[in-house]
């Protein structure tokens, strides 16, 4: 991948992941409570997929995958347009237009989906909490001060996600 690659729209990427979950098992409306907050398990999962995809793409390319700012909420990073509209997105998923992403980004998102499918939400939250940018911004109180800068630590992410990227690039997507 050379040169600047256009960033994707966060709702388009969210819908892309939601559409893959044909039986609604992953992106569900089961409530769970962690760190004093109650939320939908599927909403937490979706936002972690988006954030992990963003960070890993930054580690690979030095650029953002998705045109979005994440916020350092207590149970990991969230994209507000997705987190605050989760129920609506779920309800309307069958009507959502399938966007054709560029091949390299589509394949990357497919691999991320497969790689994270078996992780439970607690593990996804733990992984997200290992992001220094999340740890720094989560210390703040107001929502605005919890806004994260994903590009600030791109050199750190190259090291942090090196093992995952090595394996992701070699993953046999047919090996279940």
């Amino acid at each position: 991948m050379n040169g600047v690659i256009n960033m994707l729209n966060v709702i388009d990427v969210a819908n892309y992941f939601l559409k893959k979950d044909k039986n609604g098992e992953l992106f569900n409306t089961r409530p769970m409570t962690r760190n004093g907050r109650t939320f939908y398990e599927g909403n937490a999962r979706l936002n972690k997929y988006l954030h992990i995809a963003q960070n890993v793409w930054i580690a690979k390319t030095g650029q953002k995958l998705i045109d979005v700012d994440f916020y350092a909420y207590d149970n990991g990073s969230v994209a507000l347009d997705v987190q605050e509209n989760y129920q609506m997105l779920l309800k309307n998923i069958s009507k959502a237009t399938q966007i054709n992403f560029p091949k390299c980004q589509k394949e990357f998102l497919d691999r991320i989906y497969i790689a994270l499918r078996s992780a439970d939400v607690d593990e996804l939250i733990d992984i997200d909490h290992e992001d220094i940018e999340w740890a720094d911004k989560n210390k703040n109180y107001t929502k605005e001060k919890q806004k994260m800068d994903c590009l600030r630590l791109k050199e750190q992410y190259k090291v942090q996600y090196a093992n995952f990227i090595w394996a992701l690039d070699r993953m046999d997507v047919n090996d279940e």
Partner: protein
Amino acid sequence: MMNSIVRVGEILHIKMRFNNTGAISKTRHPYIIFKVDGKNSVLEIIQLDSIKPKNIKRLLHYKTRSGISPTFIVPVSNPQETVICKDSFAQLDNKFTIENFVGIEKFRRDTDKLSDKKLQSLFAKYKEYHRQEFIDENKQVYITKEELLSLNR
């Protein structure tokens, strides 16, 4: 004091109890012998898992304060390994010790080891991880001869 038949770097293929809350592997995994403690007749071993879509998520974990990953990748090629058949990874954030006994060599397929450079790199990373990070007590597992034989009938 026991003269061990098995040596550092050799591989045992065994089913193990993964933690002290009782999770047990369904299949045999390769475990590399990291240390032979002759005085106490125990072996310290490191688990290898082949990299699959369902476990690749484990490679995302990272200890940002110490700058260490709890996993170490062992590629099957460059050079081509004889003791693993797929790209694999070692989980560093646990401590498995098993009783050493005459007969444990039956769990060894042969005396082959990983290629030297990969083996030494793995051991160095394991030592570094254990120097820098606490190992959760639930992951400090000791298996007696009786338990090992029971798990591996």
